[in-house]
């Protein structure tokens, strides 16, 4: 965390950091997509927070709203069809949803940066990797062409791309998948962000490369004391990296917990199902469990607990009443009517 970033935030209008406020706090976020087929309720009251130096893993199947939350934080949601119906997103205690366009643009890149799933399509194919990194340095920091080039090479070195000097002049398609994702990471670090959102950063990569990228992210995060949101659908990926985990289902957070407790004892049947569907070395020969059924259509979310049609523990109350967030212990919540029983099983 350089003095540089702090200063740039202090300089801008209305950007007084509120002392004691978390780095990022999302509260009761509601987002709808209005399409020809109807209104799709994508986020239905999402709340989470991230502190500096902490990694929050957001877990969920596709369509659970984890990426939409991230896009809303970044302010890159396609609107229309997206509409923010309510809630708040605070960065250093500053409300982003009410901030001016100019202020939001300042936060992007230098306050919160983001890396995307598919680096091939997320990088502009007609510009060199170097150009795409230098562009931010020149425009946002007023660096000269030469300084920006030098800094871009440093950044590529930092993410362990061999031959960075030569690589800055190459185009994204000349990189391998893993190298491309590294370049994407280097680009996101260009303005020394305090917070990094990684949207399924390893999904498009080979398994061996996945681990390398995760290690790199973890290393950079610790080194720079960044807050990180790691979005993934893969429980295996998060185990070593995440400090806390938020599990999303149908646009809600159904469980939030520190990583260790969650793995030891899931507090929601959905999390339990996810864990049981992981292949495990210590239980060879057993049949893998799967969660039956499909995620609900967001056009028509089931009444009561949205998970009830697929839940093995379903009771009558689940079909009528939306479960409240049960506080199981400090820092641990579950949105299940039977959370306590699950934990004490």
């Amino acid at each position, binding site marked *: 965390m350089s003095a540089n970033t702090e200063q740039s935030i202090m300089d801008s209008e209305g950007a007084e950091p509120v002392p004691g406020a978390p780095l990022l706090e999302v509260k009761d976020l509601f987002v709808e997509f209005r399409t020809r087929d109807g209104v799709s309720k994508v986020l239905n009251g999402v709340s989470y927070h991230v502190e500096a130096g902490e990694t929050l893993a957001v877990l969920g199947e596709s369509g659970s709203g984890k990426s939409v939350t991230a896009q809303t934080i970044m302010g890159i949601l396609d609107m229309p069809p997206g509409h923010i119906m309510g809630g708040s997103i605070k960065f250093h205690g500053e409300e982003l949803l009410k901030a001016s366009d100019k202020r939001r*643009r300042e936060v*992007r*890149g230098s306050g919160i*940066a983001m890396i*995307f799933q598919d680096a091939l*399509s997320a990088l*502009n194919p*007609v510009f060199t990797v170097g150009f795409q990194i230098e*562009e931010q340095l020149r425009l946002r920091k007023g660096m000269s062409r030469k300084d920006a080039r030098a800094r871009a090479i440093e950044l590529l070195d930092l993410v362990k791309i061999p031959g960075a000097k030569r690589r800055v002049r190459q185009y994204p*398609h000349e990189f391998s998948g893993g190298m491309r994702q590294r370049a994407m990471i280097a680009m996101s670090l260009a303005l020394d962000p305090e917070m990094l959102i990684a949207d399924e950063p390893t999904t498009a990569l080979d398994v061996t490369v996945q681990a390398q990228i995760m290690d790199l992210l973890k290393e950079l995060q610790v080194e720079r004391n960044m807050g990180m949101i790691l979005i993934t659908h893969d429980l295996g990926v998060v185990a070593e990296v995440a400090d806390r985990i938020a599990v999303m289902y149908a646009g809600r957070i159904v469980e939030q917990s520190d990583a260790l407790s969650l793995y030891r004892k899931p507090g929601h049947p959905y999390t339990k199902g996810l864990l049981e569907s992981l292949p495990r070395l210590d239980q060879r020969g057993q049949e893998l469990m799967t969660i039956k059924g499909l995620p609900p259509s967001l056009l028509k979310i089931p009444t009561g607990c949205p998970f009830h049609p697929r839940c093995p523990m379903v009771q009558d109350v689940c079909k009528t009443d939306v479960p409240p967030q049960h506080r199981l212990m400090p820092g641990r919540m579950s949105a299940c009517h039977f959370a306590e029983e699950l934990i004490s099983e």
Partner: protein
Amino acid sequence: MGRYVLRRLLQLIPVFIGTTFLIYWLVWSLPGDPFAGKCGDRPCPEAFVAAMTAKFNLGDPVVVQYGKYMMNLLQGDFGITFSGISVGDRIATAYPNTIRLALVALAIEAVIGISAGILTGLRGRGFLDNLVLVTTLFLISLPVFVTGFVLQIVLGFELGWIKTTVSESPAPWGQLIVPGFVLGSLSMAYVTRLTRSSIAENRRSDYVRTAVAKGLPQSRVVGVHLLRNSAIPVITFLGTDLGSLMGGAIITEGIFNIKGIGNLVYRGILSKEGVIVTGVVTLLVMVYLLSNLIVDMLYAVLDPRIRYD
């Protein structure tokens, strides 16, 4: 790249020979007396026929005729007409007018087409989008001679804003604006639609989202990232189009009486001056094929993903 260009050049040779031979055959060796009507109402004198037959190698089989003709042509000799005028000179005086007309048309279609396309592509559905869509449909459906005549009557005869014919040679740029608009109107509609769909498609692409997430100002996201990518198909279309515009605009040149290559070849056909027709067509085919090759290479320059080896 060098090898690719060479391979493409080699590929062009059979196409070039094929096209020019086809035209040569159509013009010279189809049924019909090439001398019919050449000497007024009377049949031509024996001496004249014999001289001309020797001159144009009409006694040889058509393939040999074609070969001899091409040999001369490649040495820069386009031959002379029945009445003894050098075809090369005729082309040299006519072609600058056609090139000017083509450039004016290209400029008009590029400026108007790209602007309209960007505007509607960025705005998305709405009144302006529908207006532009309907306008392009009309431009596509209007035959060139209708556009030409209507503008000539309204702007020239009725309002008196323009000269109805451009008889000077070389044609002054100012007088070519309306003919250029007529010639370029169809392509203008295509440029508009192509730009619009290209922008609309790229607007939602991942890399544009990345550029926004990097905190770049809107003007830079659109002006650099979006436009640079959307320009690729539009520029290649314009390149190809310049190739076909250079091919002469028989109708536009006819309506506005521009002394260009289209006019020359049309008169050549009507007066059965085969040398003019084959000479001009050979030149046009060459221009067309080379311009296509240049567009292909331009494409590789614009899009780094494409590599020709």
